[in-house]
């Protein structure tokens, strides 16, 4: 079997798909826009549910793609994709071309740009940060305010850029709730004197072990959960952040002074994915992610025969789901060639 498959995107989904396609006997080119493989995995320090280091997963994926049948082409962005008599021609932004017998799109997601929710003051107030900024602090083992002090009170805002018609994202990003709980615990671990408050609309603890971690956060780490979406943030003269919410369970408006506010940025269809969707004629859904051929038994299949999807380019997914989804692509690719021969 000397079929050549191009996998677009070398994040978790792309690397897993490339590795498994190679194991199945295909020649694989793994194309990545950045200089390094790994995608968002590189920005995360420890992962839920077990708080293992993200580098462990990266090591597994590196090993998986480090073989003769896989050519990694980094620093290259695929912008055009055309099917000519069953052979795909791919054009890069850099002006090069390649051909493939089948294509796996694994263009992933972009984190929601939190500055778009202006009322939360990201990019305006120094100590309003995002979940991804906080991971950067965890990596350095140090959580400090801009002036170098240790925060005494930290707030976490769920659903930033998710479930929000005002930014055009009606869907739930699904991972932010558990990320909030994980990060709340990690803050308390590093700073035992610091109080942490999670402002949520619903606690969506649907994944394996999530609910147990939520309970642990209450029981062992004393995290405070307040049911109400933060409506606005302002800064006091003493540089404290003042947040307003309704404590909906108490039925009263609530204000609180915080030193640091962490915004749980949601997931959006990646910019690279959007460009590719447009140029290749790949269908997208109302949520702007790629639309799968069937929600139940065709989630890896696109509207173009021979083009397949893997991972979060189709919907928000955690790493476990992404790896399973990427593996499932291989069986659809095998069926595609079997039916053609």
């Amino acid at each position, binding site marked *: 079997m000397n079929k050549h498959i191009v996998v677009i995107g070398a994040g978790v989904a792309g690397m897993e798909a490339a590795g498994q396609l190679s194991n199945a006997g295909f020649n694989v080119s793994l194309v990545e826009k950045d200089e390094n493989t790994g995608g968002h995995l590189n920005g995360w320090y420890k992962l839920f549910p077990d708080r293992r280091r993200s580098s462990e997963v990266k090591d597994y994926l590196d090993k998986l793609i480090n073989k003769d049948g896989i050519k990694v082409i980094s620093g290259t962005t695929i912008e055009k994709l055309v099917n000519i008599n069953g052979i795909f021609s791919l054009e890069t932004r850099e002006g090069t071309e390649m051909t493939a017998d089948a294509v796996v799109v694994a263009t992933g997601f972009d984190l929601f740009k939190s500055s778009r929710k202006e009322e939360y003051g990201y990019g305006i107030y120094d100590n309003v940060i995002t979940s991804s900024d906080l991971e950067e602090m965890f990596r350095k083992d140090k959580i400090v305010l801009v002036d170098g002090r240790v925060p005494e009170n930290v707030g976490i805002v769920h659903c930033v850029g998710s*479930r929000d018609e005002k930014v055009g994202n009606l869907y739930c990003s699904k991972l932010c709730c558990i990320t909030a709980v994980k990060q709340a615990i990690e803050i308390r671990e590093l700073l035992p004197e610091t109080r942490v408050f999670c402002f949520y609309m619903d606690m969506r603890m649907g994944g394996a072990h999530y609910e147990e971690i939520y309970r642990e956060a209450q029981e062992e780490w004393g995290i405070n959960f307040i049911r109400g979406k933060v*409506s606005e943030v302002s800064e006091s003269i003493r540089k404290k952040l003042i947040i307003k919410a309704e404590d909906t369970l108490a039925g009263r408006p609530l204000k609180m002074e915080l030193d640091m506010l962490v915004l749980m940025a949601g997931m959006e269809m990646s910019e690279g994915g959007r460009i590719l969707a447009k140029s290749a004629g790949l269908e997208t859904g109302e949520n702007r992610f790629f639309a799968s051929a069937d929600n139940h038994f065709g989630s890896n299949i696109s509207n173009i025969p021979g083009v397949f999807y893997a991972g979060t380019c189709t919907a928000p997914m955690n790493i476990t789901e992404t790896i399973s989804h990427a593996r499932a692509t291989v069986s659809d690719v095998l069926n595609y060639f079997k039916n053609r021969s």
Partner: protein
Amino acid sequence: MSNFGFTISKARIIDYDANDRSIAEYIAEHEPSFRVCIECGCCSATCTTGNFTRFSLRELQIFLKRGENELVRDNIGKCMLCGKCILVCPRGVNTRNVVTLAREAFNKKVKNAV
């Protein structure tokens, strides 16, 4: 008759079957976005009226949906229609129109609106 100090308390229970939800139905019919509230409380957090009086649009909406209309009737007049709640609502509920329609429904005495 002597007063023994006993009274009969009105049941606190929401009697869903007996309650009249016609006002909520009237609002939903004229402003369908009324249906999609998820009770996040953004509207009431940002509300100036709610900061000083017992007025929570989130609470009033859920009371209407359960047919507990009295509290709404007594408080719906407090809204100043400034519309800040519309700006923060993540569900795109036209909250100002909800208030206007609720007032209208009470005035029209929709069905047997309290």
